[in-house]
């Protein structure tokens, strides 16, 4: 099982094979998009920003020196890109008379190279879910969608309702320990 954490140590991009870079991408993509989304509040823009980062990073890999971990380096880069994007957007928005536009918090935390504990938890959850076998992962993610019935998930995946239930059960069993680790206080709350 792949694990993602921030104690990976420095990484030498120029020595990476393309397929290694791809697995870095798979490992960090959703989590980096989440970080950017916090700033832009726009998933499409977040995906574009993160993809642009990965493209540029690959193109310039010979000259990039990463002193911290890849995750730390990446999150600072994409947050900065997101803030730049916001600045551009806010000047663009001034010329529009939209009755609804998303909010943008002005007071963004200044980027730090070591993501805090909450962010690391996010990464761990995302990693654990993405490590589930494909069908199981799909069933789990579909079941996270708003009030989706098992029958609907079964149709979407082309499997029976009972198989959906079995996938979910196995997914929950696998995620149980991760969840415990991530949300350690919840238990006390329930017991009052």
């Amino acid at each position: 099982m792949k694990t993602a954490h921030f104690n990976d140590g420095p990484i030498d991009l120029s020595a990476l094979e393309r397929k290694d870079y791809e697995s870095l991408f798979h490992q960090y993509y959703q989590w980096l998009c989440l970080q950017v989304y916090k700033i832009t509040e726009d998933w499409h823009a977040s995906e574009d920003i993160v993809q642009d980062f990965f493209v540029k990073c690959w193109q310039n890999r010979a000259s990039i020196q990463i002193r911290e971990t890849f995750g730390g380096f990446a999150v600072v880069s994409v947050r900065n890109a997101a803030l730049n994007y916001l600045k551009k957007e806010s000047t663009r928005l001034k010329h529009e008379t939209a009755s609804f536009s998303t909010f943008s918090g002005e007071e963004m935390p200044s980027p730090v190279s070591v993501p805090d504990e909450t962010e690391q938890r996010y990464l761990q959850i995302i990693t654990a879910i993405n490590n589930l076998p494909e069908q199981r992962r799909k069933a789990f993610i579909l079941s996270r969608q708003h009030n989706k019935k098992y029958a609907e998930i079964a149709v979407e995946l082309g499997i029976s309702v009972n198989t959906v239930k079995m996938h979910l059960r196995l997914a929950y069993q696998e995620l149980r320990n991760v969840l415990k680790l991530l949300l350690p206080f919840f238990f006390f709350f329930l017991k009052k």
Partner: protein
Amino acid sequence: MQQVPHHINWELLIDLLEKPVAERQGLVASLSAEEQALIARLQQLKDDPLLTGALQLDTVQAWARMMEKETAPVRRLVGGWKKWVAAASLLLLVGAGGWLWMKSRHTQSVQRYQTVAQALPNHAPSGKVQLITADGHAIEIDSVKQLKEKDGTLIRLQQGTVSYQGGQSNGIGSQSNSPLMNTLVVPRGYIYSLVLSDGSKVWLNADSKISFPVQFDKAERKVAIEGEAYFEVVHNDKWPFTVAIAGGSGGAVKVLGTSFDIKTYGKKIYTTLVTGSVLFTPPVANPVRLTPDQQTVFNVAGGVIQTKKVIAGDWIAWKDDDLVMIKMPLDELAAILERRYDVQVSFAEERLKNIQYNGAFHFTGNIIDILNSLEQTGNILFAVKNKTIVILPANGK
């Protein structure tokens, strides 16, 4: 805590998880603590819009798209339509959420909190708009369609507007020295408008008041306001229009045929000119003449006046239920929400008051909509305790 999981009833658990949260309540109580904890944790994952949003992203497809990008010239980041898709997905992603997520970080203090949706469902303002007639009767505005003042002036009350029949053409109106005065009281939670007997229109923001003669004096038109009002005054060179602010202690605005906004909540009085020309006369200092898109800010306590350039439209957006925020601190926004929705808002931490927001919002009938949008910034969360909406940091420590 690393016990071997014993007798988890997976059948039951899986069936329970398919039900909407509201339907689970009674059933969950009968589960073992371990089963409860598991359900709660899974729900917590589901309720986190950031996490669910991120997990929906298709990494494989993204990698493929990126490979195209690498060879193609860099394209523009966000087209116009994407904004709307984003807005739509934002609505989809907002669940009852954030709340449970927050709980895990505020274990000790949070037990008495409820979500806004739970605590304030269909929240409605507690007061009613009232019209106080010349003889001192308070009439609830939606209880009658029309009424007549003692001098014969017909008053129509409909569709969010009170209108006074003009006197000149009908030979009615006060000729005496003591005109009949009415007062329109707009409590928190409402916006109301008024057509005065000269045809001038006034919009009153929540928590505001205007006193005015049923028929204006021949020599001058005088009204008095508290709170916030936007005026569109019918132009007449020979019939001056004056607005007294906060019983005169906040000064007065002399109007020369024009539209303008006066905002008097708190310690500062803002006069913003949209069109025409007004003269702001503070109680002590020299009068200031404003040109369109100018604003005076009068600090009542200090007696200091500042004049600055603004976008006047932003300052009168409230009358159309719009909110425009430009570097607006959260405590100012909280005060607006308190008035607009008749709620109490407090801060869990003092520093949160200074978070600034840029953006625009159209107020809906339900406060939850704006709170959900604000939570999307990732900086803050809302919960309810003792009927007060509490603003908490999103990254609780």
